[in-house]
C-alpha cells in the first residue's frame, strides 16, 4: 500500500474533514449513513490489466468479500467503487473517466497494481497513462504486481475505515478541482476532449462548486462543448403558448 501521491495543484487543497453536524440527532443519522456506506460497497471492476485475475479469488469462497458487504456490480450507476486493475492505456483512460463521471457519489477509486501508480513496467510506454490520480482522485492505491487477495482485502478494509470516519471524500475533489483534472485530461486527449457528463453543471447543482472548478481548461472545454443539458419535459401546447 502506498501513500496517495499528491500532484501539485494550482489552487489550495481542501483539508479532509469528518463533517460533524451540531444537531446530535443529525449526527447520529450521519453516522448511520456513513456506517451503512462503509458496510455496503458495490464495486465496478474495470479490468484493464492483469490485476483483475486476483479479484475472483477475493470474491469467492476463500476470501469472500461479501461478508464485508462488498459485491460486484455491473454498471457505473450502481457502483460505489471503481476498481482500476492494471495499466491504463490512453484509449482506456477515456473510458475510465467516462465511467467515473457516470458513477453516483460518494464514489471511490481504487488503483490496483503498480501500473496505476506510476506506469509500472509500462512507464516508458507512449500509450500508457502513468499516474491515475492525475486524471481523477484516487482514494486508495494497492500496489504490487499483482497484489494478492489479502492485499486487496486489506486495501478495501482501509477504505471502509476511511468511509466510516468520513475521510474518504476525494470524489468531492473532482468537482472542486475539476479544472485541474480536466487539464491533465486535455493534455492527453487533446483540446476537444469532452465527456457526456456535465461535471460543472453537476457541481453547481449539488453545491460542490469550488474555487478551482472553473479555470482555463474549462474555458477551453466550453468553447467546443456540445450541449449537455437534460431534455426537460416540456408541456408546450401551441395555443396556450401563443395566448401567453
Amino acid at each position, binding site marked *: 500500500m502506498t501513500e496517495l501521491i499528491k500532484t501539485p495543484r494550482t489552487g489550495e487543497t481542501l483539508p479532509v474533514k469528518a463533517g460533524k453536524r451540531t444537531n446530535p440527532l443529525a449526527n447520529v443519522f450521519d453516522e*448511520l*449513513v456513513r*456506517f*451503512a*456506506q462503509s*458496510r*455496503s460497497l458495490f464495486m465496478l471492476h474495470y479490468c484493464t490489466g492483469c490485476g483483475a485475475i486476483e479479484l475472483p479469488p477475493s470474491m*469467492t*469462497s476463500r476470501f*469472500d468479500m*461479501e*461478508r464485508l*458487504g462488498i459485491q460486484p*456490480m*455491473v*454498471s*457505473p*450507476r*450502481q*457502483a*460505489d467503487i471503481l476498481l482500476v486493475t492494471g495499466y491504463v492505456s490512453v484509449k482506456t483512460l477515456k473510458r475510465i473517466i467516462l465511467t467515473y463521471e*457516470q*458513477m*453516483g*457519489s*460518494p464514489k471511490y477509486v481504487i488503483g490496483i497494481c503498480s501500473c496505476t501508480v506510476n506506469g509500472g513496467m509500462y512507464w516508458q510506454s507512449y500509450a500508457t497513462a502513468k499516474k491515475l490520480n492525475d486524471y481523477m482522485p484516487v482514494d486508495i492505491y494497492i500496489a504490487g504486481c499483482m497484489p494478492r487477495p489479502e492485499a486487496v482485502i486489506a486495501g478495501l478494509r482501509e477504505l471502509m475505515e476511511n468511509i466510516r470516519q468520513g475521510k474518504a471524500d476525494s470524489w468531492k475533489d473532482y468537482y472542486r478541482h475539476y479544472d485541474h483534472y480536466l487539464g491533465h485530461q486535455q493534455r492527453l486527449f487533446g483540446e476537444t476532449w469532452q465527456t457526456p457528463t456535465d461535471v460543472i453543471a*453537476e457541481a453547481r447543482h*449539488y453545491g460542490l462548486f469550488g474555487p478551482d472548478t472553473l479555470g482555463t481548461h474549462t474555458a477551453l472545454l466550453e468553447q467546443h462543448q456540445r450541449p449537455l443539458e*437534460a*431534455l426537460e*419535459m416540456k408541456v408546450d401546447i401551441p395555443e396556450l403558448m401563443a395566448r401567453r
Partner: protein
Amino acid sequence: MIELILMPLAAFVIGLAMVLMMRRIGARLQRRVGPPLLQPLWDIIKLHGKETQTSHGLIHELGIVMAIGGFVAAVTLMPLPGMNGLAEQGGLIALVYMMMIPSLGLALGVGQCANPNGSIGISRALTAMLAYDIPMVIVVFGVAFFYGSTSLVQIIDAQQAGGFATWGIAEMPLLAFAGLFAMQAMLGKQPFEIYVAPAEIATGPMVEMGGKFLGGLFIMQCFQLYAAGALYTLLFLGGGENWLTFLIKVFAVVAIPMSIAFLFPRYRTEDVVRLVWKWPAMIGLLGIAFLMY
C-alpha cells in the same frame, strides 16, 4: 385502517429477512460466509444516502414510485394472521393484476432511461412474464374453482377448516407443484434470470439505476419475495393460523426456489417460454382436470 399500514410494513421487514436468507443460502451453497445480518438494510440505506444521482426524467422517477407503491398496495390484498386488509374488496384476480402494476411502473421507468440494455431487459422480463403467468393463472384458476371463490379470506378459511388434509397442497398437489415452478420464474431466479444477465446486458432493467433508484428496486425486491411467498402460502399452505406458522411457511416456501436457483446456469428467453409453457402449464392443466372430473 391500522392494518393497512402494518401489512406493508410487515411485508417489508419479512422481505428484508428473505433477501438476507437468499444471499445466505447462495453463500452457503458456494461455501462462503455470506453477508452480515443487516446487509440488506445497509444496502438500502446506502443507496438512499447517495449524494449525486442521475435521473433520466420524471417517468424514470415515477416508475420507481409505481414499483414500490404497487407492491405496497398489493400486499394489503393478502390476508395475514389476524389481518384481512383489503382482501374482501379485491380478491385473487385483482391481486394477480395488482401485482403487475409494479412491473409496469418499472418498465416505464426503465424505458425512459433511454438505454437499450434496459429495454432489452424489459422485453425479456415481459416475455418471461408471458411465460410464467400462464401456469400462474392456471393455478389461480384451479384454486379459485376448487374453493368456489375468488376471495382469499374464504380460500384460507376453507383450508384451515380441516388441518393439513384440507390444505391446497394436499388437495391439489399437481397445482401446488406447478405453482412452485411458476414462482421460480416469477421471482426471476436462476435458471430464469435471463432478463438481468449482468454480463451481457449489464443487469438489464437496472442498468441506469443508481442511488435511490436502485434503492427503490431493492425495496421492491423485498416486497416481491414476500408477495410470492405469501401468495403461495395463502393458496396452498392454508395461510397463517398464527404468526409463527405463517412465518415458517413463508420462509420455507421462498427457501425452495432460492436453493434451486444457485445450482443452475440460465435459460435463454425462448427456452424459458418453452420450458414453462410445457411443464408447469401442462401439470397445472392436468391438476385442473383432476379437480373437475
